């Protein structure tokens, strides 16, 4: 089939797999088929080695020691910001803040922008947001009298932009949306939404947790004001996330956390804030994780984000065909999608499906995918099964998934 040729022409998953130690293990005596990449991806050797090297050879704190190890660590950690800035097309490394994860990045934006909001101001989200892009705004709204509204999702699983246009007004202070839905796989037209937000004087925040790891992303091209993503979903370590923001906005914003390293001077009465990005990185930062994340970005760049996206989209098309050909399988989300497929395989509850697949060494996600409002209230499902792909997955693994689903349906048939 053309899609297979297409995918293989860009990237060789069989070769790339060899660089991911965890992929060679077995589960229940079967070869691991890891299809839960939307939750977290496996890590390549180069990332593990980069972090290991830091701990073994130049472990020390950054930005303070006047000694060789600290200088080496500082150089590596600071330049990690530069690598990530390049990876997402940011103008300056000082616009790249390392946090704990996407969730913390979004909390940072919400908390630090709070003084600029007043009662009655509106925050516009979408119905397809992850909890991390709902709950922080919901809480601010409750505590400070803001109004949260949601752009609806159409039956096809895409954003209703006509409705969005009607919802935007002078009251709208901020629009925050996911770039790629972690449930539907929808790729949202961020550039268009950001333009609409700016036309009304609102800021635009992007949850890029499911896009930055899987496709070329340029913050300049998106035209957004903030972009948040996680390291562990892009072949990097856990414990590190990124917030990118425009310099002029970050400079005006209040710090999120207070303490060491985020100050330039402190007296008993007051403190002055450090320059960007350190103003937002209080305390000893995620040094090993920053070094690991930069290595992951180099690894992905070496493969090519275009190739990764083409490969994953070909896998998603193959999965839709393979699963869609099974009786009783309903696939959610639009035809044009990122590399993930959420589905319901009648009569098997997604949790039972996940348990049965696990017996064959196949790892998928089952549940509400941290997007309960979308899954329960919009799609009207108690839970969904999801297979999500990465650069190392193969067509054969998807065939194994489809066979496993068929087998599970038989058990319950």
């Amino acid at each position: 089939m053309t899609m297979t040729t297409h995918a293989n022409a860009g990237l060789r998953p069989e070769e790339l797999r060899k660089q991911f130690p965890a992929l060679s293990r077995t589960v229940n005596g079967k070869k691991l088929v890891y299809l839960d990449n939307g939750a977290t991806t496996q890590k390549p050797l180069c990332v593990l080695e980069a972090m290991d090297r830091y701990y073994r050879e130049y472990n020390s704190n950054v930005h303070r020691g006047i000694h060789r190890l600290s200088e080496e660590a500082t150089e590596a950690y600071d330049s990690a910001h530069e690598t990530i800035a390049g990876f997402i097309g940011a103008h300056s490394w000082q616009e790249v803040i390392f946090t704990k994860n996407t969730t913390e990045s979004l909390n940072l934006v919400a908390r630090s922008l709070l003084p600029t909001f007043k009662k009655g101001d509106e925050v516009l989200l979408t119905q397809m947001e992850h909890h991390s892009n709902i709950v922080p705004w919901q809480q601010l709204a409750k505590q400070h009298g803001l109004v949260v509204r949601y752009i609806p999702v159409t039956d096809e699983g895409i954003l209703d932009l006509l409705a969005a246009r009607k919802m935007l007004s002078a009251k709208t202070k901020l629009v925050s949306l996911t770039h790629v839905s972690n449930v539907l796989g929808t790729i949202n037209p961020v550039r268009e939404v950001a333009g609409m937000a700016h036309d009304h004087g609102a800021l635009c925040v992007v949850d890029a947790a499911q896009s930055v790891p899987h496709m070329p992303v340029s913050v300049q091209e998106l035209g957004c004001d903030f972009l948040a993503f996680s390291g562990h979903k892009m072949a990097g370590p856990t414990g590190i996330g990124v917030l990118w923001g425009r310099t002029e906005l970050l400079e005006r914003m209040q710090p999120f956390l207070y303490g060491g390293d985020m100050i330039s001077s402190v007296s008993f009465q007051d403190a002055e804030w450090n320059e960007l990005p350190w103003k937002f990185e209080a305390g000893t930062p995620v040094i090993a994780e920053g070094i690991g994340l930069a290595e992951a970005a180099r690894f992905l760049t070496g493969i090519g984000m275009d190739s990764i996206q083409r490969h994953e989209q070909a896998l998603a098309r193959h999965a839709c065909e393979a699963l869609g050909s099974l009786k009783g399988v309903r696939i959610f989300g639009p035809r044009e999608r990122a590399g993930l497929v959420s589905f319901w395989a009648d009569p098997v509850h997604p949790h039972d499906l996940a348990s049965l697949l696990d017996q064959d060494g196949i790892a998928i996600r089952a549940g509400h995918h941290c997007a309960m409002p979308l899954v329960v209230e919009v799609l009207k499902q108690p839970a969904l099964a999801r297979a999500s792909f990465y650069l190392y997955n193969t067509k054969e693994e998807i065939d194994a998934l489809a066979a496993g689903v068929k087998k599970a349906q038989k058990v319950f048939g």
Partner: protein
Amino acid sequence: MDLYREILLDHYKNPRNFGKLKDADFEHKEFNASCGDEISIAVKLDASRKRVAELKFIGKGCAISQAATSMLTSHAKGKTLEELHNITKEDIFKMLGTEVGAGRIKCALIGLKTLMRGVEQWEGEKHG
């Protein structure tokens, strides 16, 4: 883990004590947000007010949650409230015929949790 043996599938497809109970002394509902499992158990006590005369459940969700609750209700019928307090998660594993891993333990125990919360609330209202 050989979780999906015939006995479990039988309880899932033909749940025992499924339905509504008229004149229940107490009823309690639990929801497992991570799965979407839902269980509601209604209990009617006998004249001594210390023993389960009748109980029924209504629920929806995965096979583990529904089958474990079906098995639990069969087990609980005729037991005293004191005996219900002594049911452990190991007892549930015994009914299921296997241990349940961390990923599914909430599913296996939602029935027990629902029943015992109901019992505790009833006792808390000074019926105990």
